[in-house]
C-alpha cells in the first residue's frame, strides 16, 4: 500500500478529489463508517479553507502506525496569507467568510489530534490525526 499520497487543491473540484482519496485510504486503514465520515468531512473543510483563503495548496495523506495503534495523518498546507489571530480562529463561531465553513474548531472535534503552524504572509500548515478505535 502506498502510504503517502497527496492532492493539489487549485480548483473547486479538487475538494471532492481530496475527500474521495481520504475516504479510500481511511477505509483501507480499517476505520468504521462513522470515522470515515468524520475524516472525509474534516478533509473537505481543510481543502475548502485552502481554496477559499489561500487559493492553492496541498492535502497530504499518510497511513501511520505505532506499536499498538494505526491511524491516518492528514496535512493541509498552503503558502497563503497565514492566520493573523490564531486564538480567534480557533474559537467556535468565528468566521470571515460569512458562515461558509464550520471552521477549524469543528475539524479539531472530528479528529483526535490537531496541530497548526501559521505565519502571516508565509502560509499555514495543519496536521491532524485520527486513530482507529
Amino acid at each position, binding site marked *: 500500500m502506498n502510504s503517502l499520497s497527496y492532492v493539489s487543491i487549485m480548483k473547486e473540484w479538487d475538494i*471532492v478529489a481530496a*475527500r474521495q482519496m481520504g475516504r479510500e485510504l481511511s477505509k483501507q486503514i480499517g476505520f468504521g463508517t462513522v470515522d470515515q465520515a468524520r475524516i472525509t468531512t474534516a478533509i473537505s473543510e481543510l481543502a475548502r479553507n485552502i481554496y477559499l483563503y489561500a487559493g492553492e495548496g496541498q492535502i497530504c495523506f499518510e497511513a501511520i502506525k505505532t506499536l499498538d495503534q494505526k491511524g491516518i495523518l492528514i496535512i493541509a498546507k498552503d503558502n497563503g496569507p497565514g492566520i493573523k489571530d490564531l486564538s480567534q480562529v480557533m474559537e467556535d463561531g468565528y468566521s470571515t467568510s460569512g*458562515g461558509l*465553513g464550520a*471552521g477549524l474548531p*469543528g475539524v479539531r472535534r*472530528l479528529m483526535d489530534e490537531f496541530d497548526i503552524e501559521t505565519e502571516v504572509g508565509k502560509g499555514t500548515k495543519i496536521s491532524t490525526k485520527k486513530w482507529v478505535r
Partner: protein
Amino acid sequence: MRIPILKLHNYLLISIQTELDDQTAINFQEDLLREIHTTEATGVVIDLTSVEVIDSFIAKVLGDVVSMSDLMGAKVVLTGIQPAVAMTLIELGIHLQNVPTALDLEQGLLKLHQEMGE
C-alpha cells in the same frame, strides 16, 4: 452534473445519489427553485439516503434551499440522513435548526401531508 427532480402530483421528489461538489449543490439550488416556480409545487422531499458526506458548505446550501423554498411557499423536508452524517454534522457544530427532517421518503411525504393539513 444535474440532479434529477421528479414531479408527483403537487410534490417534487429528489433523491441525491451523487457525490455533491459545490457547483452541483449550487446548480441544484437554482434548479429546484425554478421547478417549484414552474410546477407550482407545494411540497418538496429531498432524500439524502445515499449521501455519505455533508460538509459545512453542503449543509449551508441545503439549509438555504429550505428557507428559500419556504419564502416561495413550498415546504421542504430532508429525509434519510445517515447516522454517520448526523453525528459528523453535530460534532462539526452544524445543527440545521428549523430544517424539517424525516426518517425516510415515506415519513417525509407523511410530514408534508400533515403540515399542509391534507
